[in-house]
């Protein structure tokens, strides 16, 4: 099923009789990549799990609007990214929590993540990432961890390519400063 092309998946999804089957294949093909994309942004597994399911639900509901101007994976990452940004926005708005608290909350999740136990360098890097403004952090993560092209990131975040590049370079510089100062 991994070898199914976007085109084959889309054809199957557009046919009401096979939509369920191909949707299952779509989930299996992209779930792991999308999971880690979301997890890097929201950090907690429970939130990532919920947002991933919501991403697939939205893709089920909106698949007929997909115009194939980008790859299917790019479209799905865009949905997932928007879900994450909405999630963080809602978290900030919830009971008027100020901006700093959400970042602090993410830092707490990071501290509690046993993956980083004993790996101080990695933890420090993750903390440095959290110190970045949200957009810069997401751009940097997409480029650094997911190896996405600037054009793809621009497409996902609805930014210009130049904007993405400048966000990435600013993020790089800030991370360097943060790690050197620390």
């Amino acid at each position, binding site marked *: 099923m991994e070898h199914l092309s976007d085109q084959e998946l889309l054809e199957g999804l557009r046919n009401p009789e096979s939509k369920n089957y191909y949707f299952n294949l779509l*989930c299996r093909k992209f779930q792991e990549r999308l999971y880690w994309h979301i997890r890097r942004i929201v950090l907690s597994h429970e939130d990532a799990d919920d947002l991933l399911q919501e991403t697939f639900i939205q893709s089920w509901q909106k698949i007929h609007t997909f115009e194939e101007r980008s790859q299917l994976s790019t479209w799905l990452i865009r949905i997932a990214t928007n879900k994450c940004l909405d999630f963080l926005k809602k978290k900030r708005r919830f009971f008027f929590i100020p901006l700093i608290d959400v970042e602090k909350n993410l830092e707490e999740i990071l501290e509690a993540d046993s993956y980083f136990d004993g790996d101080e360098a990695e933890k420090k890097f993750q903390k440095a990432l959290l110190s970045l403004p949200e957009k810069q952090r997401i751009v940097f993560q997409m480029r650094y961890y997911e190896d996405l092209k600037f054009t793809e990131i621009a497409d996902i975040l609805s930014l210009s390519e130049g904007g993405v590049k400048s966000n990435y370079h600013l993020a790089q510089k800030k991370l360097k400063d943060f790690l050197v100062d620390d």
Partner: protein
Amino acid sequence: MDHKRKADFTKHFGTPESYFEELPGKVQERLQKPAIRRFPLRVPRFVFALSFLALIAFLVKPSEEALIENLDNDVVVEYLMARTDLAFVEESYVDYVELTESDATIDYLIQENLDLNTIIKEL
């Protein structure tokens, strides 16, 4: 997924394989459930804001009795005047108060909970 990440994932949430195996089923299950009507979240935010302000105003606004008890007579007169939009009533009432200016009269009116129309009728 690197080995350490995988071990950590397994420790908390089961093996990644089983998690990803079950995920499409969970999504299908959610798709088949009827959509939950999230009524409060669909109401525009400004409606919430207005309701909240109205509630605060309601809670903060003192009762008429409390307001009247805590005010001196001049203010009570103004307060009672403000309760009607009939200019001639106000004038008549001012005349009445000026003519009969006594605490006892005003106290009586307040105690009897008379409104301006009743007062005018009594004039």
